[in-house]
C-alpha cells in the first residue's frame, strides 16, 4: 500500500520533520486521539516531531486533573507518556490556556490563582513557538475538532 502511494507523490526537502498542532479538546473532539495515533506512527517510521503545540480548546489536553472512567482512554496521560518517552517538547499557548483555566505554577502565582493544573511535560509559551515552526522547514499538521 505505502509504495503505491509514494509513487504518486513528490518528496520535498522537509519530509522528515513534523510539528503537530492540536486545537480540538478531548471529549468534545477526536483530535487528541487521532493526533496521538498519527504521532506514534510517525515516530515508528523514523520521522522527527520537533514540537507539539496546543492551541484554542486543545489546551485542555494538558490538564493534570482529568479523571476519566477507568474503562476509557486517559488521553492526557497517554500523551504525557508518549511525549516523555520520545523526548518531544509540548507547548500550550499561553493566551488560550489562561482563558480556559490551564496554568502552571508560575502563572498560578502571577495571577494569584488557588492551584496549578498543567501536566508534565507540557509547558506554557506564546504563539512564537508556532511561528517558529511555520518559518522553519517543519511540516505542520493540524488536528481540529470535527463538528
Amino acid at each position, binding site marked *: 500500500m*505505502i509504495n503505491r502511494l509514494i509513487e504518486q507523490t513528490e518528496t520535498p526537502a522537509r519530509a522528515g520533520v513534523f510539528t503537530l498542532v492540536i486545537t480540538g479538546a478531548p471529549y468534545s473532539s477526536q483530535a487528541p486521539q487521532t493526533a496521538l495515533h498519527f504521532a506514534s506512527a510517525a515516530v515508528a517510521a523514523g520521522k522527527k516531531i520537533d514540537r507539539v503545540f496546543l492551541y484554542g480548546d486543545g489546551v485542555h489536553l494538558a490538564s493534570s486533573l482529568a479523571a476519566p472512567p477507568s474503562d476509557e482512554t486517559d488521553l492526557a496521560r497517554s500523551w504525557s507518556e508518549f511525549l516523555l518517552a520520545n523526548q518531544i517538547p509540548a507547548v500550550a499557548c499561553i493566551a488560550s490556556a489562561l482563558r480556559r483555566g490551564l496554568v502552571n505554577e508560575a502563572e498560578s502565582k502571577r495571577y494569584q490563582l488557588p492551584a496549578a493544573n498543567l501536566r508534565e511535560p507540557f509547558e506554557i509559551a506564546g504563539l512564537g513557538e508556532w511561528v517558529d515552526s511555520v518559518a522553519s522547514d517543519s511540516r505542520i499538521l493540524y488536528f481540529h475538532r470535527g463538528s
Partner: protein
Amino acid sequence: MPDRTLHILNKPPEHYRHHLCLEAIGPEDGLVFIENGVLAVVQLPTSAPDRWYALAPDLEARGLIGQIGEDRVISFDDMVELTATAGKVISW
C-alpha cells in the same frame, strides 16, 4: 508537475467546512477522509479528486470498512507517508 496538495478532511458531509474543502480541491490533489469525514464514502461527492483515501480505524469504528475498495483504505502509517511526501497539506 506542480506541487500536489493533500487535503485532510475530518468533518461530516453536513458540516460547512466539508463543503468548503471540496470547493478548494484541485483535480490533481489528494484527499484523505479521517474521523467523521469518512461518512462521505457512503455517497461520494462528484467533486472528489481521483486520489482519495479513507482512514481504516475510522471506517471500522463506524461500520463502514466493507463499503469501499481496499485500495482506498489507508492506515496511520500510510497517512504519515502521504503527509510527509505531499507538496502541501491542508487540514480542514
